[in-house]
């Protein structure tokens, strides 16, 4: 191969330009976001794992160890097959707490900024050989293509281009835990390119060099057997150790952690990657033996090319060489970009910000962004330097294994994060330092200095002495790490903060945050406090962002909501500056109001989390959760209002019935202090909570639905679990009972008045009888017709007074009126005329006219005075309701067995709500003092005594307004018609 240096540079820059173009297309929206955010793109982006090791290192490994090279793919495939139990919990944590790197996760879990710093240093030391490996493959391939003496400068040029790309498209935002669609899309494109290149090379080997699979198998069983027999088969122990190392690399390597969790699309995308990434890796691994065997069959010389680059030996065609080069460049550049992004974030959060806290930066976001960009460049240049000084002296396999064994030192820690809440910081740090020391002395230092490894093999494991160095170092360092970790964790004390963080991280535990109020009373207070640390602008933006995410308003002051706001601010700051600095800032500037209070569990929050975890619960836990839901539903749907308060008077429950009664939704008040509940609830519930009384009877309160009378019952919540105290209050609406009681009292008062009226009536009766007698005597004392007529009228009126008094007495004595035995045959026309005459005597509303349309020939059996009374009452009501110059018509028609009399006016009509009760005593539509409310009830009683019935039509059929009172009375028996009551519906 004799390609020119310029040609290779053009090929490389052409490829990198394609990446820039792709990034631009995504950023400008030329590629729709539904494509850029598709789970398939995410899976391809996870293909960043397939670094230059996958394209070149695997060939080298396969030529040495046969199928042993598969460990690199199978280890990570295993980790992704276990995504639901292994990766999803980590994703949940990183998303909830905005953790963007392994160092963030460890610092959060073990509550120490120094742990984060330690993990960053370990990552940096471990990843440098991997970075060097990527750059070395670039240098080597350029050298093989051009035969140039020093390809290092060209490799440096590529590194600078890659660094520029990472800075422009990967560090656009200061926030680390923000998905960068452009980066994801570009890495997906790189994965696609390397996959296509590798499959093409495999196809060239299978169909270009061999004549298909059968020919290949034939060659393998014959001539190729010599090559196959020359490999050194891995011992099962070595193989399993390799699998474990690569399994750990899936979530420990900075670039994998970054791509899997910091750039995560969604839970669904990660679950899809659970099978699609193993499929991608299968396709990447498949061509490796084909290329190796093809090159061996074609007679490529591993001595000249190096076994890692046997792909160049497939053919002399420049296209094949270009494919090999592009596959390597795509793999190396993708890995370099993501490692640089991930490591720069870790170094920023756990080295720079720890050494130089960002207090009072004039423009915090810009400062953080430029720091990060500088760190990206430093990481890539650091990798190039490592390649120039160390990498160049070592083969790819050695570099890669040192890196993977180094990162595996974090494996015990991350497993403890997920599955061992009892692990503590001291244990983790002690274990990590023990493992790290063995790795540094056994692998890293010898790599750097060229000195022989220093390995102390523990007694009893002497048989390991003949094994490869990487294997001994991996086993001994991990064993020392795990044992020290467990021992120290068991014998040392775990801090309160660590225990809380362990619960937050543990797979099986539900987060149980404590319930303490904040000193800040609302969002504005939070902004003011944080401004001291972050500056006013940044504080406002961060608080507003957190409030917007929680859909909170500025008026929110519930302690529960403010605690969630604090958590969200901490998570957001964690995404900006890492969990350690974020926690320091929040603890210092948004402290809790302790004041000697004992913090209790935030039950409402715990319940919300349990709701979210439901699908993860199995067995007994699921049964218990089912019971919990049942009891909760019972309380929530209790047909009586119920609310519960904690010891600190924070509202914990507000059931549906109370929501209906109060018109206040539970979600808007749960978590509030009782004093801040809307009126009148704060005062009312505060009264029963503070008073010794366990009941408050029929408290009058003004609610949106009107005045109500509520009875409250209180019970203290003191069970075996003394941590969770408080009170439960039942709120019963006794308004109807109260109204019934009031009516009963009113009725009793009316009954008293009735008895009094009967007494008064009795007393009135005597003087009226006297007046009547005197009027009667007057008839004998004079012949003056005018006086005689007056005397007649006096007698009629006194008779009427007597009848009214008798009726009143009868009404007061249970509605007993005149006996039906007194009934006589009465002309109805005359009765009506008499009533009209009496109405005219009142001399009011003279403008109203009356029309008697009753035929002269209609007779009924009854008491004439009582019927006159009925018509007087009906006509006086009609008169009072009539408009000026109105007309009242009295019409009577004969029906089968009876007469149908109506009194129709042209008034405004009667309100339907009153109409039903008009025949009840003391019901009136007239102004106070103008009506007694007895007229219609008397008429009803009298008509009923006459075996008739009475009803009201308002407005009458065919009329727009007015009222018609209809009566039915039986015809006189002497007319030969038996009384026959018509249809009562009329």
């Amino acid at each position, binding site marked *: 191969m004799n390609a020119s240096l310029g040609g290779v540079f053009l090929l490389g820059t052409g490829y990198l330009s394609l990446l820039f173009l792709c990034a631009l297309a995504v950023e400008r929206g030329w590629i729709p976001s539904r494509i850029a955010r598709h789970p398939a793109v995410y899976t391809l982006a996870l293909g960043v794992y397939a670094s230059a090791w996958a394209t070149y290192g695997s060939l080298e490994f396969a030529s040495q160890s*046969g199928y042993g090279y598969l460990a690199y793919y*199978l280890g990570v*495939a295993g980790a992704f*097959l276990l995504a639901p*139990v292994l990766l999803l919990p980590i994703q949940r944590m990183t998303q909830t707490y905005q953790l963007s790197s392994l160092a963030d996760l460890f610092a959060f879990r073990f509550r120490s900024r120094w742990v984060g710093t330690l993990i960053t240093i370990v990552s940096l030391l471990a990843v440098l050989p991997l970075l060097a490996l990527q750059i070395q493959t670039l240098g080597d391939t350029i050298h093989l293509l051009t035969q140039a003496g020093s390809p290092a400068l060209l490799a440096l040029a590529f590194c600078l281009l890659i660094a520029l790309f990472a800075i422009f498209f990967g560090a656009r935002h200061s926030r680390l835990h923000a998905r960068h669609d452009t980066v994801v899309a570009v890495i997906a494109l790189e994965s696609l390119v390397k996959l296509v290149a590798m499959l093409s090379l495999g196809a060239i080997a299978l169909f270009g060099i061999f004549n298909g699979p059968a020919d290949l198998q034939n060659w393998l069983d014959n001539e190729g057997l010599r090559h196959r027999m020359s490999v050194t*088969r891995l011992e*099962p122990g070595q193989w399993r150790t390799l699998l474990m190392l690569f399994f750990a690399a899936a979530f420990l390597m900075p670039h994998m952690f970054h791509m899997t969790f910091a750039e995560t699309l969604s839970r669904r995308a990660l679950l*899809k990657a659970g099978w699609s990434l193993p499929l991608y890796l299968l396709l990447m691994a498949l061509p490796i033996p084909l290329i190796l065997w093809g090159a061996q069959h074609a007679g490529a010389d591993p001595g000249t090319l190096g076994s890692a680059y046997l792909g160049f030996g497939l053919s002399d065609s420049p296209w094949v060489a270009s494919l090999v080069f592009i596959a390597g460049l795509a793999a190396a550049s993708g890995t370099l970009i993501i490692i640089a992004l991930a490591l720069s974030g870790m170094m920023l959060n756990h080295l720079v910000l720890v050494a130089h806290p960002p207090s009072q930066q004039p423009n915090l976001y810009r400062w953080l962004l430029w720091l990060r960009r500088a760190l990206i460049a430093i990481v890539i240049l650091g990798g190039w330097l490592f390649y120039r000084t160390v990498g160049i002296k070592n083969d790819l396999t050695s570099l890669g294994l040192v890196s993977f064994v180094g990162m595996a030192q974090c494996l015990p820690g991350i497993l403890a994060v997920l599955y061992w809440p009892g692990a503590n910081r001291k244990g983790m740090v002690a274990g990590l330092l023990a493992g790290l020391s063995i790795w540094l002395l056994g692998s890293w230092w010898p790599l750097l200095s060229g000195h022989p490894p220093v390995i102390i093999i523990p007694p009893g494991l002497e048989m390991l002495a003949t094994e490869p160095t990487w294997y001994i170092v991996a086993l001994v360092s991990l064993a020392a790490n795990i044992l020290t970790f467990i021992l120290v964790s068991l014998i040392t004390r775990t801090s309160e903060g660590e225990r809380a963080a362990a619960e937050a991280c543990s797979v099986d535990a539900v987060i149980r945050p404590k319930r303490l109020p904040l000193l800040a009373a609302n969002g504005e207070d939070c902004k003011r406090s944080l401004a001291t640390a972050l500056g006013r602008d940044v504080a406002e933006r961060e608080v507003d962002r957190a409030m917007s995410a929680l859909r909170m308003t500025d008026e929110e002051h519930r302690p529960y909501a403010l605690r969630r706001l604090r958590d969200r601010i901490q998570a957001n700051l964690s995404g900006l500056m890492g969990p350690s600095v974020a926690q320091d800032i929040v603890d210092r500037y948004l402290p809790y109001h302790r004041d000697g209070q004992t913090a209790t569990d935030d039950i409402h929050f715990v319940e919300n989390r349990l709701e979210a975890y439901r699908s*993860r619960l199995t067995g007994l836990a699921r049964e218990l959760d089912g019971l919990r839901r049942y009891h909760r539903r019972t309380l929530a749907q209790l047909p009586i209002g119920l609310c519960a308060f904690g010891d600190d008077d924070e509202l914990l429950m507000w059931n549906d019935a109370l929501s209906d009664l109060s018109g206040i939704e539970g979600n808007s008040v749960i978590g509030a202090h009782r004093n801040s509940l809307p009126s009148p609830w704060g005062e009312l519930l505060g009264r029963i909570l503070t008073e010794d009384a366990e009941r408050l009877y029929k408290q009058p309160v003004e609610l949106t639905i009107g005045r109500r009378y509520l009875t409250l019952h209180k019970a203290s919540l003191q069970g075996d679990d003394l941590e969770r105290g408080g009170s439960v209050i039942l709120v019963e609406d006794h308004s109807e009972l109260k109204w019934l009681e009031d009516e009963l009292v009113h009725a009793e008062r009316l009954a008293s008045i009735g008895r009094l009226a009967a007494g008064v009536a009795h007393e009135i009766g005597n003087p009226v009888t006297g007046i009547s007698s005197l009027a009667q005597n007057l008839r004998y004392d004079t012949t003056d017709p005018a006086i005689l007529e007056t005397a007649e009228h006096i007698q009629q009126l006194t008779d009427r007074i007597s009848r009214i008094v008798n009726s009143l007495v009868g009404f007061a004595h249970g509605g007993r009126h005149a006996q039906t035995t007194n009934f006589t045959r009465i002309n109805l026309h005359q009765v009506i005329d008499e009533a009209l005459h009496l109405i005219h005597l009142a001399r009011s509303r003279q403008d109203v006219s009356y029309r008697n349309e009753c035929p002269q020939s209609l007779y009924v059996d009854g008491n004439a005075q009582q019927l006159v009374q009925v018509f007087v009452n009906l006509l006086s009501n009609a008169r009072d309701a009539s408009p000026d110059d109105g007309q009242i018509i009295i019409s009577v028609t004969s029906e089968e067995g009876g007469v149908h009399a109506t009194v129709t006016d042209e008034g405004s009509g009667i309100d339907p709500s009153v109409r039903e009760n008009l025949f009840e005593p003391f019901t009136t539509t007239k102004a106070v003092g103008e009506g007694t409310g007895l007229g219609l009830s008397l008429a009803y009683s009298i008509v009923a005594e006459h075996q008739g019935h009475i009803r009201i039509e308002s407005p009458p059929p065919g009329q727009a307004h007015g009222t018609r009172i209809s009566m039915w009375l039986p015809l006189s028996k002497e007319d030969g018609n038996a009384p026959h009551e018509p249809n009562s519906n009329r």
Partner: protein
Amino acid sequence: MYVYRIMLFLVFGGYLLSPMLMSGWATPGIAWYRPFLIWGILIALSVWLEQKRHLDER
């Protein structure tokens, strides 16, 4: 959750038995693609379990 346990069992079972995969490299008569075939079956199983899990959690 039960689906996850099946997957755990499969992956750790595969981990323990995987050294047998490598024996095919230098053994005449054994198809060179055998490890990839087993790997493919594991992926197919995983797809099936993923569908099943999706139905379980619906």
